[in-house]
């Protein structure tokens, strides 16, 4: 009996040590496969003039080199995560759409591609709608927007950096700052980006949707 108990005890011990492992698996860095990126790149390379591309940032050297080499494009880096972080800290999220519009002062139909990463996850519906419509106006016919959208709300989530590894994979790295993530349903995304069509939508292993929107 005693030996059974001891054995039972020893059996339980590894179980308890195994419990803390999952949090460690969360990981700060992860590589995700991207099916939208090659389609996004081909959409840009099909544009008639040298492409102009907006990256919501933060600036990542390898992305700049990759996109520059690959597309020979004009790249606008707008560190909107920084703007987002500032507004979250000061509690002025209502003013964020205005700030974004002020930052992205490109003419209508003047941009071929927009990499907004997971920016919209941190916006509530009304703000997301305003920013999305601004992007739709800036986009040139044939242009594309690529973004990541969470599938469930998260009370507090870190900002992420999306580093392009190659045509089909992306490295996710934690960035400074955090905020609440809002899951926008597909229907809502379609309404937000009225004027664009969802060209591709992929559910990734990290439980986010990679969505490519095109303007006809």
């Amino acid at each position, binding site marked *: 009996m005693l030996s059974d108990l001891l054995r039972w005890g020893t059996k339980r011990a590894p179980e308890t040590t195994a419990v803390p492992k999952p949090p460690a698996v969360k990981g700060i860095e992860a590589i995700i496969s991207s099916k939208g990126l090659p389609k996004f790149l081909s959409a840009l390379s099909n544009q008639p003039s*040298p492409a102009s591309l907006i990256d919501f940032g933060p600036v990542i050297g390898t992305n700049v080199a990759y996109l520059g080499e690959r597309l020979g494009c004009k790249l606008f*880096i707008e560190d909107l995560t920084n703007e987002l972080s500032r507004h979250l800290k000061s509690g002025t999220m209502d003013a964020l759409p205005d700030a974004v519009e002020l930052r992205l002062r490109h003419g209508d139909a003047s941009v071929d591609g927009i990499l907004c990463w997971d920016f919209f996850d941190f916006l509530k519906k009304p703000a997301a709608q305003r920013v999305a419509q601004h992007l739709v106006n800036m986009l040139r016919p044939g242009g594309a927007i690529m973004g990541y959208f969470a599938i469930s709300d998260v009370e507090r989530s870190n900002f992420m950096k999306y580093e392009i590894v190659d045509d089909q994979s992306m490295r996710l790295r934690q960035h400074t700052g955090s905020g609440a993530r809002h899951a926008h349903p597909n229907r809502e995304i379609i309404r937000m980006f009225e004027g664009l069509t969802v060209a591709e939508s992929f559910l990734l292993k990290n439980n986010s949707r990679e969505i490519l929107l095109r303007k006809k």
Partner: protein
Amino acid sequence: MWKRDDAAKPAVPAAPGAAPTHTATTSPASDAAATRPTAGDARGLEGNAVNIGKSVVVKGELNGSEDLTIEGQVEGKIELRQNVLTIGPNGRVKAQIFAKAVIILGEVTGNVTATEKVDIRDNGSVDGDIASPRVAIAEGAHFRGSIDMQKAGAKPGEKPETKPAGASTSPAPQSPAGAPAGAAR
């Protein structure tokens, strides 16, 4: 046996003998080299380089045909079309820059045009537009603006062919591009 020892000896002392002479000769050289690389090599300079020291403030236009390192403050315009410009960690530049290559470890506010490369190193900061065929941005660097990596001659095979068709549309992104870059910043 003797022969073996003799044969062995010169080989053995030769190495330690040679080593000290090397170290003796190389140590001053390496000292000199150690100072040189920190001042020059680490900043990517080769050959002659001119420095604008920490306490120097220049307002106006800078032209030259030598590599230049700026540790002080410059406001205006810098043109080193055939040379390398390095903005050191203490350098503060508010200017339009034209150079062959630009290495930035300090702060730059203004547009940077390089015919070869722009390299923003860790802690380097640029607020402005960059036009260069190659751009490298290190992990801790700050950048805000646009990057134009189109080759000067627009060589990439496919695009120039399509360019004439879209030639009327290509200036379109440039006009808004210039506007937000300057205006938003």
